[in-house]
């Protein structure tokens, strides 16, 4: 990378860091993870800035990198226990990425259930829902994810159904919430 590329990168990325963080937080639903996602996105984007065409919308390009970092995380997450966990009980619990007790205590029961339901979705579905919830339009999401518009529509529909199904499962296991809903 040349110095010109480095300067170009700085000029291009700076205005979009906030938007990246918002999208990353929607994806990760965890602040520290969102920060890591943004950092990794910037590093990857930096290494590939020469590929960016002048006419290309920078924000969409960055969001696409973010999306890829997030979706690639599937493999990393599957392999991650050894990086942090070296023993049995922790290995078992590593399969269940829940918020820790302090974080959980700050959540309402409904939020916690939504969070658990979210974690059950595959990353592709999570990415679509997060981007849509952040206000990106279907054509923008198609650009970010690389999905054709029709496929995007079908997957977004299935993602919402999956979310509802997971959430219903979570809430069905909690009699308290069923009662609240019934009210």
């Amino acid at each position, binding site marked *: 990378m040349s110095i010109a590329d480095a300067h170009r990168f700085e000029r291009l990325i700076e205005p979009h860091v906030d938007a990246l963080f918002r999208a990353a937080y929607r994806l990760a639903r965890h602040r520290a993870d969102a920060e890591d996602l943004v950092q990794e996105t910037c590093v990857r984007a930096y290494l590939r800035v020469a590929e960016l065409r002048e006419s290309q919308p920078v924000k969409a390009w960055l969001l696409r990198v973010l999306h890829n970092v997030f979706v690639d995380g599937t493999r990393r997450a599957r392999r991650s226990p050894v990086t942090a966990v070296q023993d049995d009980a922790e290995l*078992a619990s590593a399969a269940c990425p829940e918020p820790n007790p302090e974080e*959980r205590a700050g959540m309402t029961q409904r939020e916690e259930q939504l969070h658990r339901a979210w974690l059950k979705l595959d990353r592709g579905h999570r990415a679509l829902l997060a981007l849509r919830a952040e206000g990106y339009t279907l054509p923008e999401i198609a650009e970010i994810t690389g999905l054709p518009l029709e496929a995007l529509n079908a997957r977004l529909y299935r993602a919402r159904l999956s979310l509802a199904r997971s959430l219903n499962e979570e809430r069905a296991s909690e009699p308290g919430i069923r009662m609240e809903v019934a009210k």
Partner: protein
Amino acid sequence: MNCQEVNFIVDARAPEELSSAERQTVELHLVSCQACRDAWAAYRELAAEQPPKMPRDLRLRIAAALAARAPAETRWPRRSLLLGGVLLVGAAVAAGLALHVVDRGPGLARRADEAAPAAAPALPAAGVPAPVAGAPVSGSGAGDIASADGAAVPSGAATDRAALALDPHSLVVVAVPDGAAGPRAAAEFAQCHEQVLQRLRALDGLNVIADERVSAFDAFNLSPEEIARELGAATVLVVSVMNHEPSCSATQLDAQTGAARAGILVFVGPEGQPDGWKSFAAHVAESVRDATFKDTSTVVAEAQATVLNTALSDGERASALFKLRQGPGGSLAAYDSGIVAAAAQIATTSRDAGAREVAWVGLRGVGDPSLLQPLLHSLATDPAENARRAAALALAYFVDEPGVRDALVRAAAEDPSDHRTGPCCILTVREAATRALLSEQELRDLALATVMNTALTDQERLRPITSSVDGRGFPVPLNDEAARAIFDMGRRSEDPIFRSQAWYSLRRGSPNPAFAQVLLEDLARHPEENVRGAAAAVLARYTDDPSVRTGLERAIAEDASQNVRGNARTALDGVDR
């Protein structure tokens, strides 16, 4: 029009853009289609949540990460990218103790030049002391702020401490591993330490001194503040991890006086360690940046006030209970009855199921008899399974009181939930109640009998050996028969997590040479690093066998995974055998 088409209309256009015919179509569809109604309701709940504001130091972290990645020939224009972040940090640290926004390029370069040749050694002149085995070794930090620290040689400078000018912008980070560190604890601790350093190094104007420059002093039995003085830093941050709790703490000491000016205590929680370390590291770095470290008594006083403040949310109050448990007494029993009463009030009356659960977990081990009836009531009636599970485990401490055994037996037999979600993802409410009823020896006997019960699934057989999450999870020593059974289960499992769990469990039995060959095979060839890492850890007990030593050496040299290499090195060094 089918569901998908209706969804496309809603997705593709804002409500005001819909024609009246489209709006009617959508409304009619939603009235008649439960699935779509549920889907949109769930999605609206998700979309209504708003992301927090971006952390102020994120731009600095990004800049640091980019600088570290920049090819040597490219000078990343870091200062200009940092400008916004620097200004923010500068405002925050105007009254700071460790930070200082400076034109640090030339400043740090100067100090780096000065550091190495500086002074005559006051320490024993035995050359450069090697880092002590087991001391955390994290990233070398090439290209980051710490690289400006100069050579990793202890100068041993402080012959005249009174005259020593300590740099207020330098922070020494001393890592104190858990006393009972084995490979697992060491690896976790290294992770935590690394996260903290990464965050601190992203702070501008702070000269972070850590890793080899600090561990080089381990051989000299110096206190943290003495190490800081030797390194010319005014402040030292002591980071330690208590794996049994598990929790992290960070304490900031004045190098000149040794006064503990600050203390952070964070409960990490039994699950999700990587997240726990990240949160802890972020918390520590923010506290350094903003100079908001507080001494332990302040932390405890604030936590007490939080617990007692009924105007706050139950979640916030319950979180504060953990800080109190980390205080001087180590248990809520050390505080006055008002705290216990407040915790019991949260546990019994909160509408927040998470708060109820956390409050009961916090009260575990508090022998206050007034808790007995609320615990029994909660176990029998709380609609949230997590709260019932926490109540069952807390009742283990009252098991000889009248009525408790009956209540636990009833829960063990009848509790309707068999979900394994919750605080540990491992115990159902029925299992928690069962455990609460048993003595330590009975729990061990049950675990061994379960391992040998071939009518159960392998997961069910192994679980009692591996779960130690309820505060009563006593380690279960394996007899030879049980070890053999676990070995067979591990060998036939294609699930890498299960297989690695099984291998780790073998460390609780006597070494059996018959196991070593399979473990060596896994270390050399298993595609999953989890399994290779577990095999390496267990092979620590077989290093008298030359072929095991060879296998471990090969893993150290060739394995693609840093973690596997680390485990193999630890095994070969003979730690935790």
